[in-house]
C-alpha cells in the first residue's frame, strides 16, 4: 500500500463508477496500472465491494432503520468475535461494530417497518445466549450518510466571471 493506492481508494470511495481510463487521466497513471492496482486492492479485500449511497427517504420505500446497542458477556478464548459473527449473518443487520463505552456491540438494523425491526430484535437478537441487555433506537431521519449530506443545500451565488 503506497501513496498512489491511497489516492485510488480516496477517488473510488467518493465515486466508484469512474472508469480506469478516467482515473488514469486524473492521477497521471497508465490505465493498466490503475487496473492492476485496483485488482490488487480487491484481491486483498481492502476494497470490499462497490455500493451506492441512497437517500431511501426520497426513494419512498418506507424502510425503517434502528441502532441497537447490546451488552454482551464475552466468551473465554473468543471474546466478542463468535457472537458478533453470528449476529452479522442476519440479513437485517447492515452494520455491526464493537464499541468502547457503556455497551459492547452496536448494530444498524433495517426492516420494512417498525414492527419488523422490533420483532427481529425481540425474537432473534435479545434471546441469544450471552446477550445481557438491548437498547433499540429508531432512526427518525438521516442527514448525512458516509460523508454525503442528504439535505438540500442552497447553491451559493457565483459570478460567471471573476479574475
Amino acid at each position, binding site marked *: 500500500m503506497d501513496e498512489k493506492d491511497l489516492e485510488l481508494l480516496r477517488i473510488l470511495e467518493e465515486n466508484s463508477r469512474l472508469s480506469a481510463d478516467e482515473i488514469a487521466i486524473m492521477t497521471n497513471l497508465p490505465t493498466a496500472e490503475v487496473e492492476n492496482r485496483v485488482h490488487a486492492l480487491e484481491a486483498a479485500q481492502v476494497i470490499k465491494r462497490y455500493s451506492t449511497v441512497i437517500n431511501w427517504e426520497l426513494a419512498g420505500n418506507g424502510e425503517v432503520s434502528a441502532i441497537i446497542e447490546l451488552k454482551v458477556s464475552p466468551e473465554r478464548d473468543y471474546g466478542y468475535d463468535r457472537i458478533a459473527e453470528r449476529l452479522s449473518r442476519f440479513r437485517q443487520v447492515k452494520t455491526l461494530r464493537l464499541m468502547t463505552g457503556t455497551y459492547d456491540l452496536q448494530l444498524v438494523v433495517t426492516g420494512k417497518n417498525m414492527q419488523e425491526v422490533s420483532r427481529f430484535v425481540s425474537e432473534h437478537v435479545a434471546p441469544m445466549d450471552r446477550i445481557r441487555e438491548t437498547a433499540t433506537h429508531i432512526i427518525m431521519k438521516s442527514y448525512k450518510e458516509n460523508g454525503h449530506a442528504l439535505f438540500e443545500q442552497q447553491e451559493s451565488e*457565483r459570478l460567471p466571471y471573476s479574475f
Partner: protein
Amino acid sequence: MRNFISERAKEIPPSGIRKFFDLALTMDNVISLGVGEPDFRTPWNICESSIYSIEQGTTSYTSNKGLQSLRDALSRYLGQHYNLPYTSNDEIIITSGVSEGLDIAIRSIVDPGDEVAIAQPSYVSYAPCVTLSGGKPVPVRCTEKDHFKLNPETLLESITPKTKALIINFPNNPTGAVMNASDLKAIADIVIDKDILLISDEVYAELTYEGSHVAAATVSDLWERTITLNGFSKAYAMTGWRIGYLCAPKELCDAALKIHQYIMLCAPVMGQVGALEALRSAEEDKNNMVNEYRLRRNMIVAGLNRIGLPCHVPDGAFYAFPSVKKTGLSDVEFAERLLKEQKVAVVPGSVFGVGGEDHLRCAYAVSRKDLSEALNRMEIFINGL
C-alpha cells in the same frame, strides 16, 4: 457641469470582459470556467467559529494591524511552512483581501513617475493600482516557451533607471506557472543588482502541485527588499471573507500601515476570526481541496491537449492556459463564440496583459462533472470550426 472624473480614473481601462459578463448573465445552463475562486464552500469549522464569535459579540474594530492572535498564528505558520521569519508585532498587517494589500504596498512605495515592472500575463489589478499611484506600469512578457516563468533576460531589458519595483505572482494567475528556487535566484540577482523592490503576490502558494512553494523573500538577500502578499481566499475557499495579509520588514510595513489605517482601519473582525480558525484546524480540509484540484488539473490538461488546444501542465493555482493559435481564432473571438455557441465561459488571455494573447484562462475550480461537460462542449465547438 464640469466633468468631475479624475484623469487617473479616466486612465484606467474598462474591464476586458464586461460584454462577456453581461452576455453570460442572460444565458441559462452556462458552464463557467471563468471564475477565479474555489468552488468549495468554506470549511464548516471556519464558518462555525466565526458565527460563534458574532454570537459572543465580537463585532468591534481590531487593532489596525489585525488581531494579535491571528498575527501570532500567521507568524508561526509562515515560519514553519515557508521559512519566512516575519514577526507578528512589526512585520505583518492583516488586510481586506490581497487586493487591499496590493494597493497599500504599491501606494507606500510608488511616487509619480516611478516605473513598476509587472511580470505578465498577470492578475488584472496590478497595472491599474500602479497607475492610481501615479506610477507607470511596465509589462514584462512571460512566454509559453518558458512555461510562463519570468525570464531574467526579458526582465533585465525592461528595467530602466526609473524602475522602482517589480511585481510577480507565482503560482500565477492566469497561467499556473511556478518559479522554483533557482528560477527565483536568477530574478533575485537582477532585483538586488538594480536595487529595486519586489512585491510578491503568493496567494496561490498553497496550491502548488509539484514540490513545495518557494517564498520569494527566502531567496538570496531578497528579504529586506520584498513585500510578501498572501491571503486565505484561495487555499481555504474564503474569497468572500476578504482576509489577506501583507508581510514586510518593519520600515516597509510601517509605511503600508499608515495607509491601511486611513483607508481601511482594519480588516473585518469576523473574517479575521475565521482566518485564525483556518490556521488552527483547516489543514486537512485544505489538503483535501488541493488534492482534488490536482486531479482536475490532470483531467483538464489531458482534455485540452486531446481536443486540439495545446496546454502546458500548470504546476500551481487552478488555471489551465491553453493556446488557441491553431484554431485561427483570436482568444477574444474564441471565448465569445464558445460562450454563444456552446455556453462555456472562459476568459480570453489577452485580458491579463502581454503574453496572454492567443490563450484562454480556463479555471478548473469546478466539479469534475462540469469539467467533463465543458471539455465535451469545447470539443464540439472546435470540431465545428
